């Protein structure tokens, strides 16, 4: 594994690791680790750092929905044009062009179901190229980006063993 890939793997599992810790784990010096991270950011490989949040553990309402979006293209308008328009809304957490029965998969986040419904009805559905929206509200998240949301397992190994 090259240095950049190794640093990337470590950041993927914990983006909060500091440079010293990353250097100690990889055997690289701190300056090299910093260079790797700088180049990953400069090349647009690493686009940002965010927490993985289990919203159900907060006392406030947070609603997520997955929208299936079908569009109709014409000579002047392609997928990229439509995606630019949709991606700019802050409510859109992710936007992907996918293969299969529909064109775009859109993840929406809002404070209430009403917020999300209104956003879809008033901002997404009226886009001229959009021919159909199907909204799926997220009822429970069990795993997000590789992290399971169940209870943490205790380490029940013997405290000392051969």
């Amino acid at each position, binding site marked *: 594994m090259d240095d950049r890939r190794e640093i990337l793997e470590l950041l993927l599992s914990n983006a909060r690791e500091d440079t010293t*810790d990353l250097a100690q784990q990889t055997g690289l010096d701190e300056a090299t680790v910093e260079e790797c991270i700088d180049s990953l950011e400069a090349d647009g490989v690493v686009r940002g750092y965010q927490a993985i949040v289990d919203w159900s553990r907060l006392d406030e309402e947070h609603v997520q929905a997955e929208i299936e979006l079908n569009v109709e293209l014409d000579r002047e308008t392609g997928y990229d044009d439509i995606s630019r328009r949709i991606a700019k809304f802050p409510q859109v957490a992710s936007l992907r062009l996918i293969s299969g029965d529909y064109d775009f998969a859109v993840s929406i986040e809002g404070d209430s179901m009403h917020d999300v419904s209104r956003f879809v009805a008033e901002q997404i559905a009226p886009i001229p190229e959009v021919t159909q929206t199907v909204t799926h509200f997220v009822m429970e998240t069990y795993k997000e980006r590789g992290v399971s949301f169940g209870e943490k397992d205790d380490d029940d190994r013997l405290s*000392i*063993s051969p």
Partner: protein
Amino acid sequence: MRIADRVERVPPSGIRRFFELAEEKEEVISLGVGEPDFSAPWAARTAAIDSLERGRTSYTANRGMRELRTEIADHVQRYDLDYDPDEEILVTTGASEALDVAMRAFVDPGDRVAVHQPSYISYVPGVVFAGGQPLAVPTRPENDFALTYEDLANAGAGDAEALMLCYPNNPTGATMSRSELEAVAEFAVEHDLTVLSDEIYAALTYEGEHTSIATLPGMRERTVVFNGFSKAYAMTGLRLGYALGPPEAIRAMNRIHQYSMLSAPTTAQYAALEALQSCGDEVVEMRDQYDRRRRFVLSRFDEMGLDCFEARGAFYAFPHCGGDDERFAEELLRQEDVAVVPGSVFGVGGEGHLRISYATGLDELRTAMNRIERFVDGR
């Protein structure tokens, strides 16, 4: 009730006292654990579940399911080991059973068995329980804890009947290169020693390739190799191992195995089969994580000024604590709630060292190393 002499001759495990001390404390970070902190790969676990759902709860063939033996034969070819699944492989209840059965199959009462030390705590009792006489062969830090021809000669191992070998090693993390093993093989051939080679940590080799002594000239016919699924596949609790050896050796071991264990757990055999067939990526991922932790721990000991042997295999660091290792470990546990194992419990040459297991999550490892640093600074 009268207890057999050979049982009375083996003192209680040296780690028992530390286990009890650690159990008294509530918030201990344990670096004393000789097993992975990962769970077995999910695919292997589902294979075990599936086997139960299908009611596959009977004994298997004494030697283990043929399908599994065939898969093991394919798997060990990565170490240039070539064994016939019908005649030369025995599936056992953990590598521990393979060790026990081998001792009983190859050691007659009074036979001497050379055991290099420091090494896993079960070897010497294994020899004694088989009626043999253990012969300690100290290895030295200046040789990176590799066993040398001179070590064997100086300890009088030429008069022994068998040699117990374990590389990558628990507790030092030492590995042996092909050329280093060649010297040991030369000694074994010269003195007609049977070699019992525990290679349970083979997949956890971080620098260089693992070499099995059985692949060296003149060794296949005198060597039994042990391996298993506990360490590489994080399947300690499933208790599945295997032995590889020439037909007469496996026949002899199976004779004991078929009257004692009958066959290894069927559920675990299905899990092992799946592990070999589809969990190679998980093994690599776990090994990479251990490797990162290994570098982290070595780097932290370096920062603390604690001389630490640079382990190249298994998941242990073996720092020199500069004095009474039992006292160091006990005070560290009492003052800083960090459990480690004193090196002296692993035999001659372990004194003055600590065994630090890095089969622990990095966050805990980080906290534990900070506590060790505080403890060392305060001494």
